[in-house]
């Protein structure tokens, strides 16, 4: 009786495992990360009122010793957005990125573009003097250079007045 029960459990476990592999919804790690981002992020009111979108690069590096992810923000990020992303940092599961890319070693940092798109954009944002695009890969004045895992952007569209 016991061995019969074990066999039944093994069959169910095997079925569930293969089902999880086949189901694109369960495999879609980016969608999970994106839905967490959209759920928790609150676009700073000051930026929304001023019609300033946010486009910057998040550099995510796994610290093996501390068993945690360290974040760096490119120079195109607004201080209010840095504060906001740091607020929700623990709610974003960056393990999903490595799972999605099927990477076991986590020594190479990930580059995730962050995009807060606005329905109405101020003229200043697209001004020729704007440095947003030039600073997309600059971190503390220095361009990121070397090997990275690039990942799909985390995006949010805000309908502002």
């Amino acid at each position, binding site marked *: 009786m016991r061995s019969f029960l074990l066999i039944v459990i093994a069959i169910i476990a095997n079925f569930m495992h293969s089902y999880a592999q086949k189901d694109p919804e369960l495999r879609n790690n980016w969608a999970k990360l994106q839905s967490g981002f959209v759920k928790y992020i609150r676009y700073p009111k000051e930026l929304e009122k001023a019609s300033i979108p946010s486009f910057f690069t998040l550099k995510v590096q796994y610290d093996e010793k501390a068993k945690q992810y360290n974040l760096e923000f490119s120079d195109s990020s607004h201080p209010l957005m840095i504060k906001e992303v740091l607020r929700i940092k623990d709610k974003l599961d960056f393990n999903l990125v490595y799972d999605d890319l099927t990477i076991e070693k986590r020594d190479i940092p990930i580059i995730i573009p962050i995009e807060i798109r606005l329905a109405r954009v101020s003229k200043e944002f697209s001004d020729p003097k*704007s440095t947003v*695009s030039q600073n997309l890969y600059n971190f503390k004045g220095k361009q990121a250079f070397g090997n990275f895992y690039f990942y799909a952007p985390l995006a949010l569209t805000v309908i502002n007045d």
Partner: protein
Amino acid sequence: MKSIKFIMIILYVMINSLYAQDKGKIDNFKKFENSFLRNFKYPAQLQERCIPVLTLMVISFDQSGKINSLSFSDSAYPQFIQEVQRVRDNIDFESLYMDLKSMGKENEKIIIPIQIDTGVIDECDSGILQFDLINLYLFDSKPLKGRYFLYKKILSKIFMARAIS
């Protein structure tokens, strides 16, 4: 006294060799960048309308140093891509390859961000739109994903002046 002299000579040689290595790297990138900008003619259709170039160039080489694949993200206008294809053979990709080889990165997929601002003097000056930034990471509508070697960017301005009539 002899040992001080000896140490000084060693220090001099070390500094010189470090400087030479650094200079060599910069020269290779500059050679590639200069040849790109020297051969590239800003498409008139884009320049007249003050449309800048903002894109990611992804390039890979084969074992012999020939270009395996060359593509641009969706934010690149067709006129820009056509122009690069036109002058492709005159661009010094060999210097880029040599630079990558000196770092042991010649087999990687390389990303070179490109931004070229443009305009017509006393008429208009280009600016980057939200639309350009949204398309920057897309290749055939799919987001860029995977391992890449992020290289230095090409950043320049190419302006046009109208002839006085």
